[in-house]
């Protein structure tokens, strides 16, 4: 399932996938796969993404 919350939070911060990947020390393709719903990140990566986007885990990764 696509993660549109992550995508919109990233856009709100004016960050490209490349920028967010660099901050979280992963590849751009990993961020792309998470947004497309093709990959489920570990909790460690989820926390890293939340810190980069100033959001909580619920806001980005909890299912509606």
């Amino acid at each position, binding site marked *: 399932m696509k993660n549109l919350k992550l995508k919109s939070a990233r856009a709100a911060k004016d960050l490209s996938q490349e920028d967010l990947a660099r901050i979280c*020390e*992963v*590849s751009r393709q*990993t961020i*792309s796969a998470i947004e497309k719903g093709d990959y489920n990140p570990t909790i460690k990566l989820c926390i890293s993404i939340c810190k980069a986007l100033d959001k909580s885990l619920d806001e980005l990764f909890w299912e509606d």
Partner: protein
Amino acid sequence: MFEKILALAIYVVIVVVLWVIVKKRKKDTNFDEMQEKVRAEGYKIAFFSVLAMLTGIIIYDVIAGEALPQYVLSGLLIVVVMLSFTIWGIYCIRHDSFFGIGQDWKTYLCICIVVGAIHCSSFVSEFVRIISTEHDEAFMHLFFAKAASSAAMTVTFLSMAVAIAIKMIASKKESED
């Protein structure tokens, strides 16, 4: 006897050198969690591919009635090894996990093309030599495995070059939105 010991010593040196290169590469190259997962799946697929190919060779050898010549078996084993590496390499390239974070794809593309071309020319010359001259079993022992090795390396490097090129084009076209 001396040649066998020398061959074994060369093999040990090659294994040690490869181990050192892999250890150094592990320090310098970073793969993220998704890439590690994909690479592990690639190893699994390559492993089962090796099992399937070796099983096929064994079954053929058993039911064929006569044992495969030594030089044919050597050539087949080389092909099995290189094919399994090709399968793993192309799977990782397709799923963005062959290159570590920050690695330059273009360098690897150039290397694959050059090495593939070198092995292709080597294979062509070995093949021409095999088909154009009268040969005995000793000749075949010497050149068949070499020709198989060159052919397998050509397929490996050129197919990986194609996979890298396709991936580079697809990545450029891929839009974030």
